[in-house]
């Protein structure tokens, strides 16, 4: 399985190169890729249907327990077949849709990469392997949605999708880590056996919420649904793929996958029920108000996803079977519908329902496909849509709680799909019109064959449910529930409540269709209402982030050096105080005072001289005086060193001080005169801060001095300096021998300084500075 996926990735990465070789025939290898995979998975089918699972594990990062672990069971193969089958058709379609586009190679790269990561996602047996593929789908969908990259709307939509799903991805990561910690394994098959362990964990609820957040963002559930309609900025084949078998279904897959691990508790079911219901109704309601074909379909996808989530939330055997059946149906039909919408757009140049009419004659194959798929979509006998709808109704009516509510929700959603079916299957094509929309060019075979194939499939599934759909669904729902169940699908209706409902749905649907035009007219007036919806929250969040960040940054990064320094020093003082607070050893003041009395006269004179100079320096306005004063202070320090037994240091200090003063004088006459620039009150603030800092340093110094220093270094050097170091001047011996490496560093600093000064003074870049 690894080989299959890797091969797929390699083929997808090579597509730009293949494009150069094959030109417009690029679609052949790219369609062959999913088709081959489809066959490959079909080979597994018989044994999977008998309840076997296949695993293959490859070591990747065993230290982190993240391995390439693939796991094929009923659910995975169900998704894998769906992805590859639809993938094949979409690839063919894309070849027709984007003929001659200069970036076709890159398009196929992203599309097939997207497909492979989706495939990897459903095949992963290691939850982190799954997570990695999950994120890859986000990234590749970002590239796909932003494919029309010179258009600002595309970029906006791509970014939005990436951010929303990326947020979900991070939540997923945290959630998976929590689950992994709770279940003490990252392997899906192990986790499936540890349901109790995970559910009894203290962090079960946060983990669950994080997983749900991930699934909801990916599956476009309320309130994260808004990215999905915007994502139709992508080329239509992408939308078809994204809405039918991939991306949005990833969230559903996640929920289904984790249902046996996390599910069965009210914490799990309640959020699903709520989010699913709201999305189903809101999606249906919004779908009816759109005039853009793709927008209609996008919102109806949200509605369908809502139903799927709702079904998982209900969680009974029947509901899950209905969920899978509906998922299959939705994948087949929504893909068809998108492809048809794309063909219409391609041929006429518009997607506006109000403008399009009378296309039945000019686009005959498309029209046939559209009508048939609409019948299935609306749930007409004998299409698969009929069976799926019956199942949904049955499941809601048999729900353990809130049956009427969920029934109504499914009903609303279904009514909406009937209306959409009327619009797409009838209104655009067959309603008599005086001025049929002009078709610029007929649709090629690549554009109408894939929808027809899909329609045929849904008819096939409808006609032979017990041969085709039943085993597939049974093995898949077995995986979702972690125990085998038997659901039989029948084409022929039992005359039950469900059938009545179907008829009732049609009647209401037709009535709604009759009123549809009126609704479309009203819709623009409702726009302000929608502008306060979740999407505006997102926009506000982004704008707020940008504005807030600008404000915060210009506050923190004000550009004033002194506030930077003040902040740093304050932090420093604060931290030192914090570390000494409470338990710090107290300063023994009396001994200090004793020591203070011990000061010799000349030392005192020196000190007074220094302190005096410092204050003189503050007062003086002359630059030369201040340099001279500075020199005095430096020399006094040097004298101090001398007095306390450090002749070398003293000499160095003398020379350095001289040199600094010389340097200063050399520079001085280039500097402007001396002025006081700061405000008075600010100066006081600084004085306080400086005093605080000075006091802190003094305190620290005295505190450290309080503890007798037992330096073994001193003793060692004193003892061995001459014998081993062959020198009497210990300081010098240390510098050139014991610690010569320091000196090496020191002279390096000096060398670099010289280079720097030379470069500073000699090298003049052009104004503004180039590279």
């Amino acid at each position, binding site marked *: 399985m690894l080989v299959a996926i890797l091969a797929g990735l390699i083929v997808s990465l090579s597509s730009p190169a293949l494009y150069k070789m094959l030109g417009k025939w690029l679609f052949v290898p790219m369609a062959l890729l999913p088709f081959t995979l489809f066959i490959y998975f079909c080979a597994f089918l018989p044994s999977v249907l008998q309840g076997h699972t296949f695993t293959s594990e490859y070591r990747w990062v065993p230290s982190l327990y993240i391995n390439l672990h693939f796991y094929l069971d009923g659910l995975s193969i169900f998704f894998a077949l769906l992805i590859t089958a639809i993938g094949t058709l979409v690839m063919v379609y894309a070849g027709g849709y984007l003929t001659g586009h200069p970036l076709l190679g890159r398009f196929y790269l992203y599309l097939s990469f997207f497909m492979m990561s989706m495939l990897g996602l459903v095949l992963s047996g290691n939850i982190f392997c799954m997570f990695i593929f999950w994120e890859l789908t986000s990234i590749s969908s970002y590239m796909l949605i932003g494919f029309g990259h010179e258009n600002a709307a595309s970029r*906006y939509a791509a970014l939005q999708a990436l951010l929303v799903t990326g947020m979900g991805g991070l939540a997923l990561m945290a959630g998976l880590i929590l689950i992994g910690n709770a279940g003490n394994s990252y392997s899906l098959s192990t986790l499936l056996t540890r349901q109790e362990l995970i559910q009894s964990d203290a962090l079960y609820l946060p983990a669950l919420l994080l997983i749900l957040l991930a699934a909801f963002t990916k599956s476009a559930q309320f309130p994260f649904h808004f990215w999905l309609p915007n994502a139709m900025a992508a080329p239509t084949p992408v939308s078809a793929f994204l809405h039918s078998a991939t991306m949005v279904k990833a969230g559903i897959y996640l929920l289904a996958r984790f249902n046996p691990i996390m599910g069965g508790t009210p914490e799990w079911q309640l959020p699903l029920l709520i989010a699913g219901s709201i999305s189903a109704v809101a999606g249906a309601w919004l779908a009816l108000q759109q005039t853009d074909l793709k927008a209609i379909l996008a919102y109806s996808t949200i509605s369908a996803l809502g139903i799927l989530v709702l079904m998982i939330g209900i969680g009974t055997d029947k509901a899950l079977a209905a969920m899978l059946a509906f998922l299959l149906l939705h994948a087949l039909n929504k893909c068809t519908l998108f492809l048809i919408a794309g063909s219409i757009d391609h041929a006429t140049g518009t997607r506006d329902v109000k403008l399009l009419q009378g296309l039945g004659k000019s686009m005959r194959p498309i029209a046939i496909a559209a009508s048939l798929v609409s019948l299935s979509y609306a749930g007409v006998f004998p299409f698969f849509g009929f069976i799926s709808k019956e199942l949904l109704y049955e499941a809601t009516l048999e729900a353990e709680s809130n049956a009427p509510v969920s029934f109504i929700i499914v009903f609303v959603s279904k009514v909406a799909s009937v209306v959409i079916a009327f619009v797409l299957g009838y209104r655009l094509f067959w309603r008599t019109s005086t001025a049929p929309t002009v078709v610029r060019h007929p649709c090629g075979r690549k554009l109408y064959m894939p929808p027809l194939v899909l329609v045929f499939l849904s008819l096939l599934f409808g006609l032979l449910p017990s041969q085709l759909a039943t085993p597939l669904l049974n093995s898949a729902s077995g995986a979702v529930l972690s125990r085998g169940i038997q659901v039989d699908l029948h084409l022929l209706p039992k005359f039950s409540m469900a059938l009545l409902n179907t008829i009732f749905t049609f009647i209401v649907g037709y009535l709604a269709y009759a009123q549809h035009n009126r609704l479309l007219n009203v819709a623009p007036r409702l726009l302000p209402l929608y502008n306060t919806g979740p999407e505006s929250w997102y926009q506000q969040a982004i704008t707020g982030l940008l504005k807030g960040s600008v404000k915060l940054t210009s506050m923190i990064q004000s550009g004033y050096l002194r506030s930077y320094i003040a902040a740093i020093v304050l932090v420093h003082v604060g931290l030192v105080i914090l570390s000494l607070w409470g338990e710090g050893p107290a300063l023994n003041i009396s001994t200090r005072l004793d020591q203070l009395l011990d000061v010799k006269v000349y030392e005192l004179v020196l000190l007074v001289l220094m302190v005096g100079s410092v204050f003189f320096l503050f007062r003086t306005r002359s630059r030369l005086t201040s340099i001279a004063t500075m020199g005095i202070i430096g020399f006094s320090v040097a004298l101090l060193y001398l007095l306390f037994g*450090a002749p070398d240091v003293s000499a160095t200090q003398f020379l350095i001080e001289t040199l600094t003063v010389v340097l200063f004088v050399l520079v001085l006459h280039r500097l402007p005169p001396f002025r006081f620039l700061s405000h008075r009150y600010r100066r006081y603030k600084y004085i306080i*801060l400086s005093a605080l800092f000075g006091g802190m340093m003094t305190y620290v110094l005295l505190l450290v001095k309080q503890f007798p220093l037992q330096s073994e270094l001193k003793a060692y050097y004193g003892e061995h300096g001459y014998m081993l170091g062959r020198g009497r001047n210990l300081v010098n011996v240390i510098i050139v021998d014991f610690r010569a490496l320091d000196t090496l560093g020191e002279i390096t600093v000096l060398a670099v300084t010289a280079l720097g000064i030379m470069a500073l003074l000699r090298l003049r870049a052009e104004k503004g500075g180039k590279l």
Partner: protein
Amino acid sequence: MVGILFGAGLYLILHRHFFKLILGLMFFSLATNLFIFVVGQLTRGGTAIIEEGSEEAVEPFSDPVPQSLLLTAIVIGFGILAFAIVLIRRVYQVLHTNDMDNLNETDKIEQPIYPHE
């Protein structure tokens, strides 16, 4: 004394004028050096030099370790200060200002880009 030097240095650095900035930096380096020196034991008189004829240093002799650290630190400090002095001079030459507050061009934020349509 160290405290006063530190405080004074900081006070000067916080000024807006270049010149005072440099003076402040000088103070700061002086203060740090003195700090190091004082942290090691202060010993009056006895230098860290072994007397002619003897093979070991006789107490009291001052701790040579801080002294040698100090030497290194002084020199490094000088290097950096020298560079800073020249830098200030160049800055004045190029930017024609001696006011620190005029130097916040590089921290400025340009008009942000909003990703809306």
